[in-house]
């Protein structure tokens, strides 16, 4: 197993928003040059607004979606500049953390 010193430090951003806002988040990811993202639709959980139902059978827009991307640190400011005003206007949340990857070329 590699030690952490063999890994490259990156920034990891996780965003949870309604399905209706998810395209805006993906657009910001794309605009900042993120090379990819992971999305999990129909996530459920408990937040300050109470419990949120997971997948709905016939409505993709009203459920929550989690989107995760990993970018080099220099792209974080641009990501946050786009995401913050979006989240100020919606019920979504954002988590920013350091992360370590073994294949940095995948993310730059």
């Amino acid at each position, binding site marked *: 197993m590699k030690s952490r010193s063999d890994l490259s430090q990156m920034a990891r951003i996780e965003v949870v928003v309604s399905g209706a806002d998810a395209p805006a988040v993906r657009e910001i990811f794309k605009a900042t040059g993120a090379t990819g993202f992971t999305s999990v639709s129909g996530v459920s959980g408990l937040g300050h607004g109470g419990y949120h139902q997971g997948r709905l059978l*016939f409505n993709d827009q009203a459920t929550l979606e989690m989107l995760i991307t990993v970018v080099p640190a220099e792209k974080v400011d641009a990501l946050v*500049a786009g995401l913050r*005003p979006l989240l100020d206007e919606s019920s979504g949340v954002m988590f920013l953390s350091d992360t370590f990857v073994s294949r940095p070329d995948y993310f730059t």
Partner: protein
Amino acid sequence: MSTAVETREPVTGTDAGPARTRLLTDVRLAGGVLAQAWPIETFIAVNPLGGFEDLPFDQAVSRAGEVLGARGTLDESLFRRAHEEGRINSEELLAATRRRVPAAVAADPVLIGGQPVAADELILSDLLNGEPAPAPVRAERMLSELLSPGIAAEVDAQAAKWTSAFLDGGQAGWTMPGREDGFHAAWRDLAARDRTVPKAVRESLRQIPERSDDTALWALERLGIETVDQRAYVRAHLTRMPGWAAHVRWRGEHGSAIDLVSWVAMRLAYEAGLLEDELGRSSGWSTEFQAAGTGSAPAVAPDLRAARVAAEVAPASEPSASELAGISSLLEQLPVSERGLVWLDAYETHYRNRLLHNLESASAGPAERPAAQIVCCIDARSEGLRRHFEKTGPYETLGFAGFFAVAISYQSLAGGAPDSLCPVLLEPSNQITEIPAGGAEALAERQLAGQRALAGAEDSFHSAEADLATPFVLAETTGWAAGPLAAAKTLFAGSYGSTRARFTRSAAPPAPTVMTVEQAFTFEERTMFAEVALTMMGLTGPFGRLVILSGHGSTTENNPYEAALDCGACGGNRGAPNARTAAAILNGREVREHLVGKGIEIPDDTWFVAAEHDTAVDTVTVLDRHLIPESHVEELSHVERDLVTAGSALSAERSRLLPGARSGLSPADAARHVRGRSTDWAQVFPEWGLAGNAAFIVGPRSMTRGVDLGRRTFLHSYEAAIDTGGEALETILTAPMVVAQWINCQYYFSTVDPVNFGAGSKTVHNVVGGVGVLAGHGGDLQLGLPWQSVADGNRLIHEPMRLLTLVQAPLERIDMLIERNTVLQELFGNGWVALAARGSADEQWMRHTHHGWKAWNDQEEAK
């Protein structure tokens, strides 16, 4: 006006810097005030204020007034007319006032000429006779609107010109060069050489950057708009032409080479260039811009308001200044801008009380196995068909979303781009193709050859019309026939339509086809669909020998809004392919065997039949006849005969409201009349669609059977007893009800403000291919429904009321579903939809309020 200054950092490279991503988000958020707008051929009814649904309805319409300059309730003069006509009575009006401003109604009497006058009398007088509420005014305005309105008009004209040129669906003889490079690149290249703008402006346009976001930032900088104000400023541009802006947003979200950023960048660049040319560079420009909510809204002077009421209530008296101040103080508790909400409450209450009263006379359906069952779409128009059909025999009818729970992408035998046949809340999950039935390949080829020949002839005729040289030849060769043909289409629309249909059938005789159900759906998907669909509608037995699944569509001529009359649950398309797909799945032997294990036993002699209800002519056409077992043919013919009887009765009922229809038509004459309307190319009222829609009822048919609901209610079948976990009800409330609410809001706002939310009169519409309609030859794209969808001249056909949802299910189950679904919290909690429920038929109706469930009859309770 903000005083904070944020500096935009220089932007370089291909990845977005913070200024670019901030702009991207600001433009998106600014666009949130726009209505969703699909191209007109798949017209989808939506809530034009969908971007405000997180706000209480009252606040949303107030905010829309500021941002869009739009009215959120019916003009008071129309409410007052409704009062004069008895549609609203004074008791209902006072009760609504009491719910909104209880302290004002209960206040001490006020003196006029020394005589005490009751507070409620004064408030009622103000509602009935007070100074009219001023129309809302759009508060956020572009600098050019404030400094030089001619420039604002020029910006609009340029925007309309380049947008329609770029989005032209192949109708124009001239194609915009460089379209393949995207809107910004194509416009940038041409605009700098466009001699319709002054030379100095062309010089300015030559400086614009390559990227659209950089162009927007560059222009905002030149206009002196600070970063903190840029969202509001972009919004001012978008709300200046909300029709084009909304359509461009849709394009951008669906992979087009035009999006809101590039569109608004163009507008900003023109504005900056034109202002600089006319006024010179001025650092003072930005101080002119004011975000919405920071200015003062138009208002009625309090003194004037009080004097008007005093004159009405005590005409012989001369009120003193202090008495007028007392009246004014009382009236201010109900601001003029909120009177419309009181009227709306009373208007809705009147209808809703009568609806619940009428439901008391509902009766149960057949106790034994029904002769047949028909499942119709929840669409309000189905209610009329179901009611009349039930009168013809021991039939059972049910309501279910018209896409029948199969979210499909459908390609017909003729090929072409597939249609998404599902609510726009969903992406299609399965690709269904129509293919020739076994042994019918040659017939299918003949049908296709006939269709190609007909389409080719039509294309050639229209191409010749558009070509520079051929119109003269065309007139020589076909003019002798075209004139009489046009006369026949106008004067004998019914005969012309049936003749043309016969000719089409003869030239391209329909071949038997099937749907690729087994290829498109896995066995697990088919069994899941079957269980979900049957459980959601409460159809778990007894099953008739025939169960008809009827999709719907509307056949009209020369009607750009045809899709608005088709099935909303099928994405504004006809629902026949969904009905055929669902029937094929439910007739599958293996699927039925699986359902037995789920407690749903479909008898071997039950056959699901696909059909389509044409709402323009009230007919139900059976589909896939070649699949129907011989053992069921005779019974089906009886059912079809009864459907014809029901359809004719429905035509007679509908004809009473159709402009131009003779009064007192017999069912047979009415059936002929609606057939004629359907094929009349000059008819602007082919049918009334969903005009009048006002309620969504979820429960067994025994709640409504035998009651004339006037084609105003969406009916979704539901049996609480077989949905103990609430999953079916959750699906009904979060999908079909949401679609119903969109439709309800589309009709509501198109009626209360036809200028801002409606499409104006059909008689001046010009179609922009693949996009929408213009009123006249230019200007903004028209959104919403045309006036002829909601009114006949000055007579409103649609009564604009918010949706009332009635559910028969345990209240605690409904509470649980609201608690875990934000969409329901917003719709019910913010007053977009009213909710009432009862646990069973024996219990009283309870109203959902912010303070829990309250008895419906407790009208004093705040909502």
